[in-house]
């Protein structure tokens, strides 16, 4: 586990190092994935590029339009304890409370969690369901990528060589909406999700579903939107039968695998159960006006 270490002072320096060293360099923010992978010999970088000296990457704010914006170095813990996140982005908050442990969250960054692109990562379904967007900086300039378009496979993203995610933006919730995240695990903490479901529902003035986003984790090579289920929800009156139907569509639309954590069949079943429960909870929150 011997590597060189650089802590550049600017993004341009960091990008230059990445371009110069290619696959032999790895970016480090919190290090809670990278260092583990290095110790387990799953990754063997010759150079670790630490972003933490670069100014401006740890900004966290809510904009005038109500969107949440935070930089690449903002930790899971910092977001977790922010009262605005807890109230306005409750699915994200819930996911954060279940990510690893407090000690891990003290270091792990949400952008890092996203870039690691594990299909079971906790923050991914809520960010997708909340319509989050990533801001990338690279040699070719800046670009924005929607969360659900960011992933191309397990551990793989659309990031080009030398490109760095500098910021994440999560839009404000619509009025009369609710957002929930449910994670399936064998224990109450320190778990990699066997299934993760994030549901975001918005109601119209008549109480019908005006907006629905449903994102699933750990049941496909990337986190996925359950588009058929979303379509089936739009315009409908909320109710148990509708949730069940959406759950069935979500189940049909995922492709889980067997591994030591769970079988594919069980994961599929849990998609159905958790989708139903997440929708029920999101609906309850929308009624209670918890999202403003």
């Amino acid at each position, binding site marked *: 586990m011997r590597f060189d270490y650089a802590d550049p002072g600017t993004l341009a320096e960091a990008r230059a190092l990445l371009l110069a060293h290619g696959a032999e360099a790895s970016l480090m923010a919190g290090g809670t994935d990278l260092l583990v992978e290095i110790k387990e010999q799953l990754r063997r970088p010759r150079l670790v590029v630490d972003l933490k000296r670069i100014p401006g990457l740890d900004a966290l704010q809510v904009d005038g339009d109500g969107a949440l914006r935070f930089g690449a170095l903002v930790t899971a813990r910092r977001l977790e304890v922010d009262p605005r996140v807890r109230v306005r982005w409750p699915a994200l908050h819930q996911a954060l409370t279940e990510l690893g442990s407090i000690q891990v969250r003290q270091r792990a960054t949400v952008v890092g969690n996203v870039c690691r692109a594990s299909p079971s990562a906790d923050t991914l379904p809520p960010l997708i369901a909340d319509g989050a967007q990533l801001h990338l900086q690279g040699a070719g300039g800046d670009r924005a990528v929607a969360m659900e378009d960011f992933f191309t496979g397990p551990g793989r993203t659309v990031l080009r060589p030398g490109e760095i995610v500098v910021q994440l933006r999560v839009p404000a919730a619509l009025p009369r909406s609710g957002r929930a995240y449910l994670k399936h695990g*064998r*224990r109450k903490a320190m778990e990699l999700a066997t299934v993760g479901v994030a549901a975001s529902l918005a109601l119209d003035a008549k109480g019908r579903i005006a907006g629905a986003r449903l994102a699933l984790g750990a049941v496909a090579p990337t986190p996925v939107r359950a588009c058929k289920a979303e379509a089936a929800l739009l315009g409908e009156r909320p109710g148990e039968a509708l949730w069940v139907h959406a759950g069935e569509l979500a189940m049909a639309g995922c492709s889980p695998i067997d591994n*030591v954590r769970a*079988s594919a*069949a069980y994961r599929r079943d*849990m998609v159905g*159960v958790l989708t139903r429960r997440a929708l029920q909870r999101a609906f309850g929150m929308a009624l209670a006006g918890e999202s403003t």
Partner: protein
Amino acid sequence: MSPELPGSRSGGALDIVGTSVRRSDVVEKVTGSARYAADLRLPGMLFARMKRSTVAHAFIRRIDTRRALALPGVKAVLTHEDVPRVLHYGSPMPRAASCTRDQYILDRKVRYWGEGVAAVAAVSEEVAEEALALIEVEYDELPVMTTTEAAEAAGAALIHGDRAEALQGNLVVAPVRFERGDIERGFAEAELVVEGEYEGGRPTPAYMEPNACLCHWDEHGRLTVHISTQTAFMVRGAMAEVLGLPLNRVRVLCEHFGGGFGAKQDLFQSEFLCALLARRARRPVMMEWTRKETFLAGRSRHPVKIRLRQGFRRDGTITARQASLVYNSGAYGSHGPGVTAVGTSSLTSLYRCDNVLLEGRCVYTNSPIAGAYRGYGVVQAYYALDIQLDEAARQLGMDPAALKLKNAVREGDLAPSGHAIVGHGLEDCILRGRQEVGWTGTKPPPTRPPEGPLRFGWGMGCEMHGSSAYPGIKEQGNALVKVHEDASATLYTGTAGLGTGAHTALAQIVAEELGLAFEAVNVVHGDTDVVPWDIGAFASHTTYMGGMAAKLAAAEARRQLLERAASRLQVLPAGLEIRGGIVRVAGTDRTISARDAMWPGHGLPSPHIVAHGTYTPTKSYSFAAHFVEVQVDTETGQVEVLQVVPVHEVGRVVHPIAAQGQVEGGVQQGIGHTLTENHEIDPVSGRSLNASFVDYKMPLAMDMPPIRTLLLETAPDPGGPWGAKGIGEDPIIAIGPAIANAIFDAVGVRFRHYPITPEQVLRALRMQREQVRDA
């Protein structure tokens, strides 16, 4: 049974034993100054790592270490070509009945995925790690057998076939058989026969401190080993035997270690290699296991398959019990013989039965080595037995608690060791627990009403377990007590610093017996050069055996102290009592402090009181009944334990908080065993699939339910200090069947294995719905 010396304290009110005094070893643990093996540093120390196989069964065709040796910073590399070829047990001498002699330090063959093939010592762990990659190994692979069925099949390759004594069918040891009465007549008398197959998975101790040892040789060829171990004298013995040294040239030190639960009784390949690397490099060598290695190369519980068949009369009497147990030993035997014998014979008891026929086998497979782990074969056996009693109760239309109470062994019945049971401990536990949780009618307490998909249920599980490994091993505990000239005292004990509070308990016993204040006694342990020989901390015997040895030593010291006081007071010793450090002439106000009695007179030499106690125990049994409430989510299959009421009968509680601590910790491990823990192996390649804490799931603080422990002292055993018996292993045995039975109570689905996964619960609930629908 216990020789009561004149004037020794017996029964009645005790001052120190029975109170939760401040533990002597814990201050260092909360300040961070307690030194565990991996905390030690010596000048010039090197760091060692093991190269481990990536195949589960193969000959080593070629192993080449030249490139590794050439790496700057590497000081020594050892392969099977460089080390003594001595067959050993892992734990020697008196352990022989329990253990198997089938290990070499390094062999030309590997028998499990992750077995060590070479060891490197280098100036840093990083360099050692890099050197491992430079060691070239070529294997001639052999068929991999990960199940006992495959290993026992006709024509299966013999995993230890290169040894002449290898038994057919990959058996570790000749099968054991226990027979009593007339099994055929027993079944003929039965009005109900219940039969089932029960299966146990592979939980592993997962102690928090990875194995570590530091070895160095002095210029006279004396070896010192600082090591994380439960059995310092076994380490000394095995090292001496295998390395060809006299025992007085090996010194083993272990002051604190971070948990063992049985699995740190063996001596591991890496520890011999640590010593050999130190000798080769002529520098101290530290060998610290990674967490992953504790899974690959440590010791797990024996996976098991049990076929159990019992006959019952309508009134619940058990007329016959027949069982066959097959324990999966993994690649080496370790404690296979002991576990098989103890586990199988445990079925002769717990619930009374006159006609018994039991057979137990232990089979080698190419999987991680199973060894001694808290409960030692009995966790498996009683999981099956207690669940089957629950099944029988349902079929007989009886309350499970009532059926178990009716059949519970009691005073005069034979224990698995062949001794008569003392008292009614098991019945007392059942009755007390029932009262506590409101299980007084003809069925379990009323459960909470369903909440949405959640269902609730109560279950009960019973157990008994011996303190000491008798008769498999004739153990011996020794103690030395010195009383100094100021009447402070020191106990020298070989009992290991397991963390259970054993040394505090021993100090309490010495202080109580000697008649001094608790603070006047200190304990010296952990150095085989200094303390008397002890077989080690296991078999729940530290209080029972170590404590009795300490009591005997203290009694003799007291006798000498009172003699001295008598001559000072000019009275006969028989008329004296001592308590809290004050000697009194019985029935008068004449006193002298122990200090004044001891203090040397003018011009006279200092007194020298040194007393020795030796105790070879037979057996005592502790009992427990656990009452558990569970919640089952019928949509996800997830099971949560909501509360546990463990009731334990232990004869005499020496330190209440330490005793509770044993129960609470055992419950955590048992909940893990039953619901979430399983070290899984790929059935084809033998590769470990979850050698980490992420995927080997132990209950965390958020997963644990409230535990309301009740400790009973209704069946003291005369063989223990003031009747005290063991407690360490009992909790992990009773909790498992209690949970399984509670799940049945909640959702009517019967599980006969562990761990019980949510997926299995869900599948069973589905089948149940289908059966109901089809009916």
